[in-house]
Structure formats: structure tokens, C-alpha cells
């Protein structure tokens, strides 16, 4: 964190300075006010005019100072936040696919968006407030000490007392808030489930009972929220009353001084300074915690925690994986066991994939089809058992040489804001005739013919201007063009209509590559052309000859 801030030493210094300006503003306006009130005592028109002029000057100066302060701050913030974004992104990009898959995408999304927003809020704003609050406190006490030493000490004592009081409320508020939010989440999940099941409830005439149950859950949440409201409102009311009481106390003490001859102007100034001292500590100290927490967030998203290894390429097995990928005969799976999220997916699976053959993976949802593909495409490496390619342990294969020889067609298609051509060739120079062939076989010719730019047509942000089916065809064209040794496909034709899906399935089955595909679609006359069907049941793989499989259990 220090590195990041020190990167722009001068700008950071200016930033800190800019945070002090509000302190000056506050002290100036308190002075101006005191001057004004002073004229009530003196009853002098001249003094009034003078005070008026000074006050006007203060108003102008303060606004300018505020503007200046903001500009100095936002520039530094912009540059620092950009750095953080890039650091966080680079960290994610440097992860291996295996370690990336260990966490859900939501976590990374949060790192790149929410966490950075939280950081912006918590770090910069809290820093500003800490400097402001701390500055006001320190300067006010110092000035008071010059004006009336013992009074200043008294105010110091009061401020510490107030701090102790606010601290005791803090933790309960946070705890209550969390409870309310948790209960609310639970209620939402419960209601969501109930809505989904209402059809069945109605079919069986048992909705009333569930309505009652749901009502109870609502009561439960609202009761907790009631506690929270009463507590926080009560706390707020108490704090306000206390602040009022303290103000009046200070006022009375100062008025007694007036009886002893102190000028009203001076008293007014002291009153404002004193009042400005009492609360800042209570507000500022919790901010230190939030500041620390936000630094923690920074460290988390950029991977610069103390003791964590930079870059996450090493897997836990610490194996050296540097043998180039060579697939000439078969990939063997032996006693493969793998669990994900605590759930056992594969348990003693055995299978042999032969080069050039086409395999269809079937099974109910959640049975492990995608997991199997991920294991075979070296996304997951922490499995038990063995996967060998032509006798060589998969784990020893160099990931880069592996990636060169395989291609994927998944449900999610990533498109660059570039030409259609580049999206298909993925920026590698390719023979034009091969590109045309791939385009044809992927069923993209129609799309190209409708645009004058043809292959040069621009794909807009995230492929906004394309349908789901068109995006999938681009993914298919990519795979065809790559002409890899193994093709992994996960529901490649699910976004396409029957006719096009058929044509593409046929194309995929005609490729030279070894194909491992997951699909729930059945295309009469085409799907039977798979060499074998792999069914996953209870963590074990069963192989069926496709002819036998489809004549037995196929729709008319």
C-alpha cells in the first residue's frame, strides 16, 4: 500500500495538504462568526461594517479553498484508483486456469468492481475525514489552550468522556445491522423457494399452510428490524440530547466567565472551538478501523498480503510440468476421483479415449459432465487417480503446449471489440481460404452476406449486436479453424435451432479432431454417428456403443 501511495510522492503530499484546507475553512468561519457577535457587545456601527467585510471575505476565501482542495484530491484519487484497477486485473490474469476455477466468478467480479468502489469510499473519504476531524480537534484545543488553559483541559476531558460513550454503542449497532441483513437474505431465499413451489402447493391445495409459515418468517425479520430501529434511533436521539446538553453546559461555564469580564466575542469564539472539539474523536477513531479494513481490501485484491506468494502459477503439487503435449493414440483415465465443493463428483472412473474418435457425454444435470471435461482439459489438477496421454502423466504436460493443441466451444463466448475476422482467427494470421471454409461450415455465411463489410464487420461491445446463436457460431468457427487435436464442446448447439444444430453437429463429427462433447440434443441420423456414449452415473463412467444406446432408448 505504501508503495502505491509513494509512487506519486508530490501528488500525495498535495493530497494531504488539500485535506487540511477544510480545517482552515472551519476555523476561519468560526472566527468570522465571533467577530460578528462581538459587535453586539460593542454596539459600534464601524465594527459591524468591518466585521461584515471580513465575513464576506471569509465566505469567498472558503469557497475558493474548498474548490482548490477538491481538485487537488480528485486528481490523485483518479490516478491511484486506476493503478489499483490494473493491479487487481493483472493479478487475476496471471492466475492459472486451475486456481482461477477454485473461486466463483462472483468473487472476482467483486474484486474488480465492488471492492474497488468500497476502497474508494472507505480509504479516501475516511482519510479526508480523519485529517479533517483530527485537524479540527488538535488545532481547536491548541487555540483554546492559548485563550484559557484550564478551560481547554476541561474540554479535553469532556471529549474523552464522549468518546467512551460512543464506543460502547458501536459494536451493538454493527451486530444488529448484520443480523437484520442476514435475516432478510434468509427471508428472500425462503420466499423465492416458495414462489417456485407455489404451482405444486396449489395443485395440492396446501397454500394456506405455507402462507402462514411465510408470514411467520416476515414477523421474525421485522421484529429484529424493530430492535435495530429502536436501538439506532434511540442512540441517535441520545447522542443529540447529549450534544445539546454539553453545548449548554459549555455555554453556561463560559457565561460565568463573561461575568468576570471576558469579552463576548472571545467567548463566542471559545464556544465554537469547544463545541467543535467534543465530537470529532468519537467520529474519527472508528474511521481508523475502516481505513485499516480498506487497506486490507487493497491487499486482498492485488495479492500483496504479507506472506502470500506473488503470482499463482504454482499448483499445490509443485510438480514440474514441462513435457510437450503429444497425443497419438489414447488418453487413459484410471481410478479418477474428484470432489468439488465437498461433493464427490467422480469416484473411481475408468475410461479410454482413442485418437480421432467422437465421444458424447450424457448424464443428468449435476452429474459431473462439465467436471469431466475440465479434468480432461487440464483445468482441474488436484484429482486422485491418473490421467495419462500416450502413457505420460497429464500433470507433467506443459500447459502452454497443451493449450495450443486443443480448442473449446463453451456456452459463454468472449468477443473482442474488433472485426469478425479477428474474432474468428483470434488475431493469428490465417489462410483466407481456410477462414472462409470455417465460416461456411459454422453456418456464418448468412450473417456475413447481410453486411457490406463482410468479415470486416465490427463486433460491438461484448457482441451486443449479435444473437446468442450467432455468437455460438463464431465460437464454432474458431474451433473449426483451429483444427486442433482435441475439441471439447459443452452444449455447443444449444442456442441454435434444430436445422442449424443438425448441420453443425454433423460438421463437428466430420472433423479430424478427437471430439468430446456434452449435449442433450438429439439429431436423428446425426447423433448416432458418435463413436461412443459416455454416461456418468454415481461417479463412475459407463461406455456404450452409440448404435446400441440409441436404438434402445431413443425417441421416435
Amino acid at each position, binding site marked *: 500500500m505504501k508503495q502505491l501511495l509513494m509512487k506519486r510522492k508530490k501528488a500525495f503530499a498535495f493530497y494531504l495538504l488539500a485535506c487540511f484546507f477544510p480545517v482552515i475553512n472551519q476555523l476561519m468561519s468560526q472566527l468570522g462568526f465571533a467577530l460578528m457577535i462581538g459587535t453586539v457587545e460593542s454596539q459600534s456601527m464601524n465594527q459591524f461594517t468591518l466585521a461584515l467585510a471580513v465575513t464576506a471575505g471569509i465566505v469567498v476565501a472558503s469557497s475558493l479553498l474548498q474548490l482548490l482542495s477538491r481538485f487537488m484530491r480528485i486528481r490523485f484519487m483518479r490516478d491511484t484508483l486506476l493503478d489499483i484497477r490494473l493491479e487487481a486485473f493483472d493479478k487475476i*490474469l496471471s492466475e492459472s486456469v486451475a486456481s*482461477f476455477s477454485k473461486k466463483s466468478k462472483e468473487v472476482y467480479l467483486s474484486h474488480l468492481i465492488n471492492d474497488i468502489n468500497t476502497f474508494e469510499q472507505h480509504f479516501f473519504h475516511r482519510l479526508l475525514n480523519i485529517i479533517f476531524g483530527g485537524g479540527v480537534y488538535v488545532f481547536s484545543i491548541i487555540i483554546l489552550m492559548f485563550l484559557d488553559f484550564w478551560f481547554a483541559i476541561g474540554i479535553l476531558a469532556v471529549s474523552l468522556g464522549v468518546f467512551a460513550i460512543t464506543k460502547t454503542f458501536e459494536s451493538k449497532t454493527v451486530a444488529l445491522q448484520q443480523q437484520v441483513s442476514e435475516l432478510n437474505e434468509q427471508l*428472500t431465499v425462503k420466499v423465492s423457494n416458495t414462489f417456485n413451489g*407455489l404451482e405444486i402447493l396449489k395443485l395440492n*391445495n396446501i397454500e394456506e399452510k405455507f402462507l402462514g409459515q411465510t408470514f411467520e418468517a416476515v414477523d421474525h425479520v421485522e421484529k429484529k428490524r424493530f430492535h435495530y430501529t429502536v436501538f439506532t434511533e*434511540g442512540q441517535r436521539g441520545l447522542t443529540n440530547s447529549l450534544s445539546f446538553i454539553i453545548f449548554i453546559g459549555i*455555554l453556561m461555564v463560559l457565561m460565568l466567565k463573561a461575568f468576570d469580564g471576558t469579552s463576548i466575542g472571545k467567548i463566542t469564539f471559545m464556544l465554537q472551538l469547544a463545541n467543535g472539539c467534543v465530537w470529532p474523536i468519537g467520529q474519527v477513531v472508528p474511521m481508523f478501523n475502516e481505513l485499516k479494513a480498506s487497506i486490507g481490501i487493497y491487499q486482498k485484491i492485488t495479492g500483496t498480503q504479507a506472506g502470500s506468494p506473488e503470482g499463482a502459477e504454482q499448483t499445490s503439487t509443485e510438480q514440474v510440468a514441462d513435457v510437450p503435449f503429444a497425443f497419438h493414440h489414447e488418453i487413459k483415465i484410471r481410478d479418477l476421483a474428484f470432489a468439488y465443493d465437498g461433493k464427490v463428483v467422480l469416484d473411481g472412473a475408468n475410461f479410454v479415449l482413442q485418437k480421432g474418435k467422437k465421444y458424447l457425454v450424457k448424464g443428468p444435470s449435476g452429474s459431473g459432465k462439465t467436471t469431466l471435461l475440465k479434468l480432461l482439459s487440464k483445468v482441474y489438477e488436484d484429482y486422485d487417480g491418473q490421467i495419462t496421454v500416450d502413457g505420460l502423466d497429464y500433470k507433467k504436460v506443459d500447459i502452454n503446449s497443451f493449450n495450443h493443441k486443443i480448442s473449446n466451444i463453451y456456452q459463454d463466448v468472449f468477443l473482442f471489440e474488433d472485426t469478425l475476422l479477428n474474432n474468428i482467427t483470434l488475431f493469428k494470421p490465417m489462410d483466407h481460404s481456410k477462414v472462409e471454409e470455417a465460416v461456411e461450415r459454422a453456418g456464418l455465411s448468412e450473417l456475413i452476406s447481410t453486411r457490406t463489410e463482410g468479415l470486416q464487420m465490427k463486433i460491438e461491445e461484448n457482441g451486443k449486436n449479435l444473437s446468442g446463436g450467432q455468437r455460438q457460431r463464431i465460437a464454432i468457427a474458431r474451433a473449426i479453424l483451429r483444427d486442433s487435436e482435441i475439441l471439447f464442446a459443452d452444449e455447443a448447439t444449444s442456442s441454435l435451432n434444430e436445422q442449424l444444430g443438425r448441420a453443425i453437429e454433423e460438421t463437428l463429427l466430420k472433423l479430424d479432431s478427437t471430439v468430446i462433447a456434452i449435449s442433450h440434443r438429439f439429431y436423428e441420423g446425426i447423433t448416432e454417428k458418435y463413436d461412443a456414449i459416455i454416461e456418468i452415473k454415481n461417479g463412475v463412467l459407463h461406455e456404450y456403443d452409440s448404435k446400441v444406446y440409441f436404438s434402445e432408448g431413443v425417441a421416435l
Partner: protein
Amino acid sequence: MKHEIMKRIPLLAVAVFVATIGFILDGWISIEMMNAIDTVIDKDRELFIQRSLRLMLAVSLLVPSQLLLAYLKGLYKKSAITGAKKHFLKQIFKKDIRSFQSDNNAEYLSCMTNDVKVIESDYIDGLFEIYANVMNFIVGIVVIAYVSVAALGVGILLGVVGMVVSMVMGKPLEKQQKQRSEFYKDYTIYIKEFLSAFQIIKSYGLHAKVKDDFHKKSEHIQERGYQIDRIVSYISATQNFLMMGILYSLMAFSVFLTLKGALTLGGVILIINNMEKILRPLMTISEWLPKLNASKGIFKRIDDLLMIKPSEPESVEINDFKAELTFDQVSFSFEENVVFDETSFRFDKGKKYLVVGPSGGGKSTMLRLIRKYFHPKEGIILLDGTNLNDIIKESYFEQLSNIEQQVFIFEDTIRNNLCLYKEISDAEIWSAIERAGLTQFVKSHAEGLDRMLYDNGKNISGGEKSRLAIARGLLQNAKIIILDEAFSSLDRQTAKQIEKTLLTLEEVTIINVSHVIFEESKALYDATYLVKNQKVSLVEA
């Protein structure tokens, strides 16, 4: 829904009343404070002490009044929010069964978590804030008027100017913020796509390109954010300048009044303190009014969603399925598609039917027609000779049992999930469990039938859920069992087994919609229907 909340007006009124007492107390304290300060100018120490004591008495009442207010405010909110949520849920539950398709469910949930939530925070809270602040404003005015009507006049004038200023400045500020969130929305979508395609990016070696792209995008968004921040800075600086000017003008005016002898020092202090009591409510009200206005639209949206469409009148109650369920020249269209065109077929009691056809061909529509979710546009569906439209839903549903692909598991015991809260003997339950192949699942835990299932069956496999649904279906002892792709989560062996069991049930009509068919069991069906090309036709064996 607004009506439900309006029912809580009495509670609101009590809370506002107590808040007003608090404001009056504040006002009283201000006046006592003014009196105490004035004794200083007059250098009357005795009077000062006297007045100070009075002041302290007033102050001591502050704390209890605040606590009481907190309690009452909490009570009002609890009552209003609970009423609103319960009303929402009750209305949803009342809806017709056909309203619970998945798109609608997402809408209902989103309405509850978003719209109802906004009503909670903007409307319910807003009502209190507005009424309380109106009272605050009134008390503030009275207190200042007590001291100097001139100052009050000037104060209000300045206050109005201030409000106008903040409203005028507010609009461009809002616009800028909106623009900002638009940028971030697009940026977020880009990042989501990147994360989804991580494996592809890595495996195709596209790191450099993607990194470059991302850097550019981030720079862009940060720069645009910066531009917006600059504009916001100018706007808020101007706003601050004007507000400060207003406050100081008022103060200067009050001090000027003292020079003219129209006001005392205490009076000046009172005015300064209470101006805040007038301006702040005005600010608060101007903040909340637009929110309250916006909620009008939201109420309408909620009420529209909750509206229950009037259903066709049903008068016939049935308690048995005796002979046949006949579709006679039935036509049905859904949105733009013609699903059925004058098709006729029937289901006889006790017979077993297989229904096949391409996806999107009309199989699920047929089931929905059977379940009375829809009425045929033309033609008629007859149950034992009576028009299905006339039959009372609840009595009809007793005859049907539905086994779906997507199974809903209640957060309750296995027993209740199977019996659906009806009284069924253990012996019958175990028989159904066995026939559904669920025995091992139930016996695997010590609690057996009393084991609790949580989270919509998160820890249960798809196959086990299907078997649970089948056992459930069997226990309903219905005359017609409809299976809707019920076997797709099961492996072939189990599927074959359960199918055989179902096909041997006597006196029960089975309608099995499935794309998985086994040679051996084909023969056990009495007939196979093909749903295709807007017709339902018998398939020759």
C-alpha cells in the same frame, strides 16, 4: 398496497405527536437559553443562576422524550412494513395457478426485493420524515416569531432562496451521477464476459490482447469519472458559496437588529440556532418529497402485478374419474403460435399412455390444458362427459398427480415432503418409497422419515429428487398420474425399473411425456401419442 400502509396512520400520528412534543421542548430550551444569555449582558448573576436552573430542568426532559420517540417510530415502521409485505404475499398466493411459471416467479421476487423495499425506505420512512419535519418547521417559526418577526421574515426569505438554489443545483448533479453509473454498468458487463471466458483466453494465449483492452477501458472509465468529478466540484462549490452567503446574511441582519435595539444578544443566538431548525426541515422535506412522488409509480407497478385476473366460473364438483378424458376438436394458440389445430384424442381410465414429440411441439401445452391452466380456444375438453372448464379446480386436482422434472422440496421432513401434509400411514409411505427406489436414500440416515431436508434439497442429487417426486406422486393415490420428463434425471436402469412399476398400477391412468423410451416397456403401454404439427395422433405400434 397504499391502503395497507394507510391503515397504520394512527401509529404514525402518535409518533409524530411525540416528535412534536420534542420539538416544543427544544423551542422552550432555546427560549430559556436566550433568557439566560441576556442576564449576562445585564450582568445579573443571581438571575443568571435562576434561569440556568430552569434551563437544566427543560434539558433533563430531552432524554426520555427521545427514547419514547425511538420506540414509537420503530413501532410504526414495523407495523407498516409488516403490513405491506404480508399484503403482498397474500395477494400473490391468491393468484391463479397458471400465474406461477418461472418468468413470473422471478418478477414477483424482484418486485418484493426491489419495489417493496423502495416503498419501505422511501414511502414509509418518508411519511414520518415529512410530517415530523413539518411540525419542526412550525415550532421553529413560532419560536423565532416570539423574538423577532422581522428576523423571521428575512430568515424565511433566505431559506426559500436557499431551497431554490439547492434544487436548481441538484438537477445537474443528479444528471452527472446517472451518467457515471451508466459507464460502470457497461464496464461491469465487460468484466463479467472476461471472467466467463477466462479459460478460453488463457488457452488461446490471448493474455496480452486482453490486458491491453482492459487497461484502455479502465483508463477510459477512470478519466470519464474524473471529468464528472470536476463538474461536480464546481457545482458543489457554487452551492456551498451561496448557502454560506445566506447563513451569514441572516446572522448579519440579526446583529444589525441588535444595533437598532430591536433584538438582544440572547435573541441573536436563539435566531441562529433556530434558523437551522427551520432550514433543515425545509431541506429534508425537499429531499423526501420527490421520493414520495416517485413511489406513486412504484405503487402502481406493485398493484398491477398483484392484480388477480377474474377466472371463469366453475360450478361442478367431481370426486372420481370414471371413464375418459376427451379432447374434442381442440384448438389452442399461444402468443403467435398455433399449438393445436382441431385435434381430438382421449385418455381412458386405467390405461397407460406414452406421449412423445419434438421439443416445442406442444407436449407441455397439452399438459397445461389437462391441468386447466389454459382453456381451449375452440373445441372442448370433457371429463366423463362434463366440460373441464366447468369443473371446480380443487376437486379436479384431487384426481391428478403430477411428477415433474424440477422437483420442489419443502424445508421439512422427508415424511412431509412425501405426504404433502396429508395423513398417510407409515406402511403406505414405505410402499411408495420402495416402488420409487428411494429406500436406500431414506434408510441412509438414522432419522429416516423424520430427516429434515433443507434449502430446496441442495444436498440431494437430481436422481434422488426425481425419486422423491415419484414417491410423492404415488402417495397421492390419484386416478391420473402425469409424468413430465420425470425420468430425465435418472440413469437408465432406475428409470426402466420405476417405469415398470408405474405401468403395473391398476385402475390408474398414466400419461407419460418422455423422450426416453425403452424397447421392453414399449409393449406395456396401451397407446402412444405423437404431439407434432399441431395435432396429437396415435402412433401405430
